[in-house]
């Protein structure tokens, strides 16, 4: 079938303004939007720029706004995005666009780094691995699935208007360690998220939960951090 892909192109070396450009490609209904983008880049217009690495929904490189919703192009099938109409593809919102569908992810990673997304421990290291019961592991299982694709953070209306907010992903990253029984940095992380730009800026619009390609219950994780802050000590 013939599919029209409408892409928001931007090249600062040519023009300051972004503009929509449409491309006709032939695709199977079971092809992914990424395949259509490949066809555009490989056969029609080699100047089209987008990120993708594994192309199988694991690396989180190709988050983009497809038909107005944040999704991974490699996990979205053509038949699911109403191919009878032109399919619109834009860069994710809230981060500076560098070219076409490529955005500057640094502010996003900065927020992630600031919640200390690594195991904090004290005392002597055990000779073997740090053991944990299955129930303790289960507690934060959902938030271990994050692939840092930024689909949640860039779907958040608070993040759109104020990039100072940590954003859903950073809170998910913190949640993964806050509720890990082996970790000892909980107090520091909670203190960071108790900030004016922390969890209290969440308005529970559930955009993040809807956007997450891994099905993480992002809003729930944020509320759990809020609860942990209220009932700590």
């Amino acid at each position, binding site marked *: 079938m013939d599919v029209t892909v409408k892409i928001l192109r931007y090249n600062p070396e040519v023009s300051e303004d972004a503009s929509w450009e449409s491309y006709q490609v032939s695709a199977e209904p079971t092809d992914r939007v990424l395949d259509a983008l490949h066809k555009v880049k490989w056969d029609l217009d080699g100047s089209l720029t987008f990120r993708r690495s594994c192309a199988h929904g694991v690396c989180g490189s190709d988050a983009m706004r497809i038909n107005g919703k944040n999704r991974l192009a490699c996990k979205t099938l053509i038949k699911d995005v109403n191919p009878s109409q032109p399919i619109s593809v834009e860069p994710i919102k809230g981060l500076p666009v560098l070219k076409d569908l490529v955005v500057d992810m640094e502010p996003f990673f*900065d927020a992630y*780094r*600031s*919640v*200390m997304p*690594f195991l904090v421990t004290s005392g*002597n*290291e055990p000779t073997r691995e740090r053991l944990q019961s299955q129930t303790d592991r289960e507690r934060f299982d959902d938030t271990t699935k994050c692939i840092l694709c930024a689909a949640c953070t860039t779907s958040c*209306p*608070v993040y759109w*208007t*104020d990039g100072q907010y940590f954003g859903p992903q950073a809170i998910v990253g913190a949640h993964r360690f806050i509720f890990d029984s082996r970790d000892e940095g909980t107090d520091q992380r909670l*203190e*960071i998220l*108790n*900030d*004016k730009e*922390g969890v*209290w*800026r969440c*308005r529970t619009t559930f955009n993040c939960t809807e956007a997450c390609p891994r099905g993480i219950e992002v809003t729930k994780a944020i509320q759990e951090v*809020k609860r942990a*802050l*209220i009932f700590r000590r």
Partner: protein
Amino acid sequence: MSLTSIPKPRSTYKAGRSNNFEMNSWLFMRGSGLLLVVLVIGHLFVNLWQGDGIQQIDFAFVAGKWASPFWQIWDLAMLWLAMLHGMNGLRTIINDYASRGGTKFTLKTLLYFATFVTVVLGTLVIFTFDPCIDPASTLEVCTNR
């Protein structure tokens, strides 16, 4: 201890003065919201439904209600909670949507000023209310004096 020491990852987060202001204001919104549901529905029930309903509301009705400390406290709680709840809601909206520092400051100053004036005037009215302010009043409390 391991032999190699790895420096802490670079972090751009600048820890400000730690306080629980945002947490407390979040909790206040939940608490005051619940209380206001009870207070406002009670207020509407007594004023608009009980007795003669809306027809009964006049100066005498208000004077009668505020003769009792129960309704004074009820209305005072309603005034303070509603004003602070609304102010805090608007404060978060300004934080969310006003991106320029100057705009934020101006809007918040106006907001705090309006809230302050309303709360002070309202409290003053509740506590200094005089049912006999009109010398020709025919209310029972005034004619018996």
